[in-house]
C-alpha cells in the first residue's frame, strides 16, 4: 500500500492561513484525494490553525507543524503547537437549534471541524504541547498512481 506524507513547519500568525490552505490543497491534489473532500480538509485545518494562533498563541507568532498523510483510504492530519493548552471541553458547542442571529458568535469553528472530519482528538502534554489529530475516512485512492506512470486505476469496490 502506497502511503503519502507531507509536512509543513512554520512560525506564523493568522496571516499564514492562506499559505496553510494552499499547502493542504496542494497535498490533496498530489495525493489524489477525492475532490469533494478537499474543501472539508482545508476548512478543518483553517479552523484548527485559527484557534491555535488566536487562543494558544494569543495573536503572537507561534510554531505550528502540520502533517498530512494517507493511511489506507483515510487522510490523517496532525497539527502540533506549543502554545497554551487547549481544552475542547471548555468550548461550549453552539446551539444549532437557536436561530443563527440569536446564537452567540464563537464556538462555530470547533463545531465545523467536528462536522467535517470523521475522527478528531486533542491531547496536551507539557513536553509535546497540543497535538490535534483529525481523520477523514475513505477519501484517498486505494492505490495512488505512481508519479512515473501517472496511471489512474479504478476505485475499489466499497467494503460492505
Amino acid at each position, binding site marked *: 500500500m502506497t502511503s503519502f506524507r507531507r509536512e509543513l513547519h512554520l512560525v506564523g500568525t493568522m496571516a499564514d*492561513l492562506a499559505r496553510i490552505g494552499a499547502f493542504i490543497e496542494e497535498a490533496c491534489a498530489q495525493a489524489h484525494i477525492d475532490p469533494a473532500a478537499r*474543501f472539508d480538509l482545508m476548512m478543518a485545518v483553517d479552523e484548527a490553525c*485559527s484557534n491555535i494562533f488566536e487562543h494558544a498563541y494569543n495573536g503572537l507568532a507561534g510554531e505550528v507543524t502540520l502533517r498530512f498523510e494517507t493511511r489506507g483510504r483515510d487522510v490523517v492530519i496532525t497539527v502540533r503547537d506549543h502554545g497554551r493548552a487547549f481544552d475542547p471541553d471548555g468550548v461550549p458547542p453552539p446551539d444549532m437549534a437557536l436561530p443563527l*442571529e440569536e446564537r452567540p*458568535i464563537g464556538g*462555530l469553528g470547533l463545531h465545523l471541524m467536528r462536522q467535517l472530519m470523521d475522527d478528531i482528538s486533542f491531547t496536551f502534554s507539557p513536553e509535546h504541547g497540543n497535538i490535534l489529530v483529525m481523520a477523514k475516512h475513505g477519501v484517498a485512492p486505494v492505490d495512488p498512481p505512481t508519479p512515473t506512470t501517472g496511471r489512474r486505476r479504478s476505485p475499489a469496490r466499497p467494503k460492505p
Partner: protein
Amino acid sequence: MNLDISLYSIAIVVVRDRIDAFNAPELRSRLDQLLAEGITRFVLDLSDVPFLDSAGMAVLVNLLKRARSAEGDVRLVWPKREETQRILRLTKFDRVFKIAETQAAALKGF
C-alpha cells in the same frame, strides 16, 4: 406638483478574496464604517469568494444583527464555488440570510 420621492441607500459590497480569520477584521471594519455612515441595507456579493471560514461567517452574522436592529437587512449573493455554498448550508446560513443567485435578484427584495 404632488411628488412622492423615496431615496434608499443600499451598499453593494463585492468581496473577491477568501474571508478568513486574518482578513475578516478588515472586512468588518469596512462594514462598520458603512453602518456608521447610516447605511443599514447591504448586499454582500460572495460570488467570487473562494473560501469562507467561521471568522468570516461571524462578520456576516454581526452585520446582520446590527443592520436588523437599525431596521435594515443583509442579502447575500451565493458564492459560485459549490463547496463554499455547502458550508453556508451546513451552518444554516441559508435559513437566516436571504441568498440570491445574482446581485440584481438580491436587490429586488429591498
